[in-house]
């Protein structure tokens, strides 16, 4: 399975060894989708690819190491009651998370495919997207 998580860590927790451990100890394929790190700590969006048991263990390990881990799914949303299904967001979406097409030509959103590039936020002419990192 693939699970996407937002990892927030304070300045004293180094990110690199963490990822090394994830790969080595828990046999997880890690893709860094987004990294935002400075002297005060940072935020990573990770894609964890492994079986569910290893993923659960690795998440526990990260939490034990003092970093905050929360699932990504809840972070990206759009107001579908106001959506006009124009398709402008699908044009910019590089991951296929947003799509539109036959038969009904209504916007479809598959959050699990999202790579948090934020292009939809700027591309929706009705400004319907919200991406939040806070739980």
């Amino acid at each position, binding site marked *: 399975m693939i699970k996407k998580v937002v990892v927030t860590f304070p300045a004293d927790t180094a990110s690199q060894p963490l990822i090394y451990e994830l790969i080595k100890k828990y046999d997880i394929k890690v893709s860094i989708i987004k990294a935002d790190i400075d002297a005060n700590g940072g935020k990573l969006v990770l894609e964890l690819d492994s079986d569910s048991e290893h993923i659960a263990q690795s998440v526990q390990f990260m939490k034990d190491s003092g970093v905050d881990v929360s699932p990504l799914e809840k972070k990206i949303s759009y107001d579908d009651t106001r959506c006009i299904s124009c398709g402008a967001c699908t044009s910019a979406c590089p991951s296929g998370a947003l799509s539109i*097409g036959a038969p009904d030509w209504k916007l479809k959103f598959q959050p699990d495919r999202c790579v948090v590039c934020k292009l939809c936020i700027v591309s929706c002419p009705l400004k319907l997207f919200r991406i939040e990192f806070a739980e």
Partner: protein
Amino acid sequence: MTKSYEEINEKIRAGKAVVMTAEQVSEMARTMSAKEILSKVDVVTTATFGAMCSSGAFLNFGHANPPIRMERIELNGVPVSGGLAAVDTFVGATDCNVQNPTYGGAHIIQDLIDGKEVTLEAWGKGTDCYPRKHIRTHISLDTINEAILMNPRNAYQNYNVALNTSDRTLYTYMGTLLPHMKNASYSSAGELSPLLNDPECRTIGLGTKIFLCGAQGYVVWNGTQFNCSKPLNENGVPMGNARTLALMGEMREMSSEFIRGAYFEKYGVTMYVGVGVPIPLLDEDLAHRVSIRNSQIDTFIEDYGHECELIGQVNYEQLRSGEFEFRGRKIHTAPLSSLYKARRIAGILKQWIEQGRFELTAPVRPMPAGTSLKGLKEI
């Protein structure tokens, strides 16, 4: 066989008119001849729901006591035209306040249609007959006199497909165009689009009654930039941006389900406007025209990354499939106008006609012929 407007209207009044959407009739045409379609179908409904900057609204606020000759006017902080009579204005869809560029004229129009109150502030120099110099008040569609939606240009006959061969992302009125041709966007409703079903405007002219944002509106003129000189493909369809319509309707009868203020990143405010146009099948030629399918409608590919050069062509079946091949690459396509909404509009217009609530009007003046476009020279 031919039919007259009067014959078709009689059928509509009797609740016996056979009405199809342009998509339905295009599907029928796979197995039926134009002659058979003419004998079976009376009216075909077409529609589009796309962004059109050339939109706005005429408002008349009514006079205050003492009266003011409004020379500078703001609605919700957005400057609008003070260039009409004392208490008239034209709210242009793209009007905006540079301090807050994401909210503009189109949003004010939508707010009014939604029944919201809008703050009006106006200034005048004060005259003997209009002594007041300033007023600040709230208005809504209930408090003002006329509120008329007006599109100097809408329902483009066809529109170029936008892509970007440059190496930077472009933010345009055709949406976000990713570098190196990673995407392409198109804005026409294809086989459902009004002016692609009656490409020579045989039935669409001044006075044609239409669906406009939920209301019954009218075609009031040829749209601006009305261009008859675009090349035709082998099916007689003009390629690229050709004819347009000027439209008007009563705002109080409209619903924001079919009209929306919008903002394109780094471009500005615009307005999504829903339009439905009925086409009476008067003869075989029209039955043949409305049978057109996406695969038979071509448009040019325009490179927004390099001086809007035309670099190829593609048809709507390819565009709708989600990708097309160009210069040896697969290019991801996405619409900019809502087919979902356009279908709703074509369906509602069909229902109105079937229920006898909407009769057809013959144009009182045809659209111009032989027009072309002028550019603008610098001195």
